[in-house]
């Protein structure tokens, strides 16, 4: 009885589609924790989400592999795909939409017309720019045209996956389609939230959506448009193999003794020291510890870092570029402060080590005086040598 009374005391309904109220609250609490908010924010998120008329989401796909959609479908606590389908009104998603062809395009147009300025635009996949963008077309329109039509009407633009953030896989050299990210394709006119990764962690994406819905504003973003709650720290800083790096124990090649013992993967090209993400903390696939690339013995390749993943060769060793002796990151201070850099050694020895206080004038004077005395005494002795002998000469003669 008591339990039921408590359940009815909140403003929340008892069920959200197929999700029980209990599961829903649990999920919201987890989401709050994921965003670095106090647990008490969990019910607030729940209320905000429940009170909303399901916000419409238009999901556009450029040159992509659907991995980002897949990662979202694989989130499991609780069945988040159910939740997100009930939380939001996913009005258009090329892979998940029930209708297809012209019907799907109709639905997109209708939703955009009905919800001008209210819908969230999610983009996965890069935008080809070369040759007028003909390399990716949907319903006879290039994805660039569709994006240019849709973006001005959206409440917020969220890029999921490195492709829509800054080009990702399709933009890898020699970039035959001229693939760029959403922000660049739109000429830098719109501020986008970037959730990079290949694929990104679904909870980073979900938490961002919930943050926007709850607080009606963008979460705190870093210089590359990534939410700080997820991309605050370097992978190297939270890595479970960090102790091996510090101790100098490295795997030198795949399958060698160090690799089998779980040593640091820096020498086989791990990009953890230059990649910001929460992989070591958040993990993937909800299957427990070590379920992330480095945990399985594969070096991080920097998928969530612009200019690292898909740009640098995988065996290349990472630059410790955020490590500068002044203690500040080279690319300016990231929001969140200087703790973002790699922890440097406490101090370095300067080129010229300070050597006491040098020689004091008094010491020089005393030493010079002593040296002078010694030299004088020696000279006097040498000169006296002959004299003393010749003085005593007559005496011996007398004897």
């Amino acid at each position, binding site marked *: 009885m008591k339990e039921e009374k408590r359940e009815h005391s909140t403003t929340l309904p008892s069920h959200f589609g197929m999700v029980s109220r209990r599961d829903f609250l649990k999920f919201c609490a987890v989401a709050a924790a994921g965003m670095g908010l106090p647990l008490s924010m969990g019910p607030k998120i729940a209320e905000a989400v429940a009170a909303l008329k399901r916000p419409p989401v238009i999901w556009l796909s450029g040159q992509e592999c659907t991995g980002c959609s897949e990662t979202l479908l694989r989130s499991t606590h609780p069945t988040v795909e159910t939740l997100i389908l009930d939380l939001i009104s996913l009005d258009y998603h090329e892979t998940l939409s029930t209708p297809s062809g012209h019907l799907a395009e109709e639905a997109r147009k209708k939703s955009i017309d009905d919800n001008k300025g209210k819908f969230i635009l999610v983009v996965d996949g890069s935008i080809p720019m070369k040759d007028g963008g003909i390399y990716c077309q949907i319903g006879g329109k290039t994805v660039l045209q569709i994006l240019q039509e849709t973006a001005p009407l959206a409440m917020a633009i969220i890029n999921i996956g490195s492709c829509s953030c800054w080009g990702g896989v399709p933009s890898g050299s020699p970039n035959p389609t001229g693939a760029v990210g959403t922000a660049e394709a739109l000429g830098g006119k719109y501020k986008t939230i970037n959730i990079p990764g290949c694929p990104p962690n679904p909870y980073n994406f979900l938490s961002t959506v919930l943050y926007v819905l709850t607080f009606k504003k963008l979460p705190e973003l870093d210089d590359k448009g990534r939410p700080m709650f997820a991309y605050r720290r370097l992978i190297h800083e939270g890595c479970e193999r960090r102790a091996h790096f510090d101790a100098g124990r490295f795997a030198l090649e795949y399958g060698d003794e160090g690799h089998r013992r779980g040593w640091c993967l820096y020498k086989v090209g791990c990009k953890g020291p230059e990649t910001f993400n929460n992989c070591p903390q958040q993990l993937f696939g909800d299957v427990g510890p070590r379920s992330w690339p480095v945990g399985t013995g594969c070096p991080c390749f920097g998928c969530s870092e612009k200019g690292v993943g898909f740009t640098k060769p995988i065996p290349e060793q990472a630059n410790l570029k955020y490590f500068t002796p002044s203690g500040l990151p080279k690319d300016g201070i990231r929001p969140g402060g200087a703790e973002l850099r790699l922890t440097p050694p*406490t*101090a370095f020895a*300067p*080129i010229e080590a300070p050597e006491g206080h040098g020689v004091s004038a008094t010491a020089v004077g005393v030493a010079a005086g002593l040296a002078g005395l010694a030299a004088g005494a020696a000279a006097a002795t040498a000169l006296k040598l002959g004299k003393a002998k010749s003085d005593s000469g007559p005496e011996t003669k007398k004897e």
Partner: protein
Amino acid sequence: MGLSRRDFLKVSAGGGLLLASNLAPGTALARPPAPRLPEAQGILFDATVCIGCKACMTACKEYNKLPPDHYHPGEIWDDPIDLSAKTVNIVKLYSNGTAHNKDQEINGYSFIRRFCMHCVDPACVSACPVTALTKEMKTGVVRYNKDNCIGCRYCQIACPYNIPKFQWDQAFPQIVKCYLCDHRIAQGGYSACCEFCPTGASIFGNVQDLLKEARRRLALPVGRFADYPLQRVDSAHKAPRQVTPYLNHIYGEKEGGGTQVFMLANVPFTKLGLPQLAPESQAGTSETLYHTLYKGMILPYVVLGGLFYLIYKNTTGHELP
């Protein structure tokens, strides 16, 4: 006074003449420069690859059983400020202005490792009066024998790199310096600093191979990717790396008659605390000078004869018969 102005001038002139006659052909009799040993081992340190992690310092202390060095009073960890009897290898930091750009002289920073350069013609070995310091004739490691050492510390003064350090805090002090981990070489290993360097900034190997590798790096096109060997110059493990600019200078190729340790950097080496040295070795120059002075014991006899003459004259009051 027994010594007249005339006598004094006579002796001085005679001595000066002999000195001059001995010194004049001195250059022709100069000691030939020491050649590089064919199987000499050494280290190539590339400052542009160094990330300043100090793994080499930790490994050095561990494998040479050196105690921690506390420069700042009250610190509980190893924090040497310079080479000392407890620290034979140190990573130093050059920093200028904002120190934001790695390997740049202005507003940049650079790391530099300092340890024994293992000169081809070591001044410390030349200066040592009791052959406590010797150059191993195969690997070229400059070794120290504590049983021969008399503690004169001439080696400290002779070394242009300020490497040999004296155990000032010991009752029976010794000279301490890097031996290139020759105890590990003897067991088929190599220097710990190179084995534990994560980036390949320090690599161990045959001096000729190291020189070849250093020349190869200087010739690499900046911005392109190139393979950099890890740990050893002949290592199968190579890491690709985007080439950053280098100063076109292999420090140690010619300095002071050459060394077995080479340094590459993009900041002038004088800024990194390495002295600018003439290509002739100081050991060769000073040995030439001294061997000339004592050649055939002529000059010492002349000086002794002069002194004898002076004393004889002063004590007897007579000219020599």
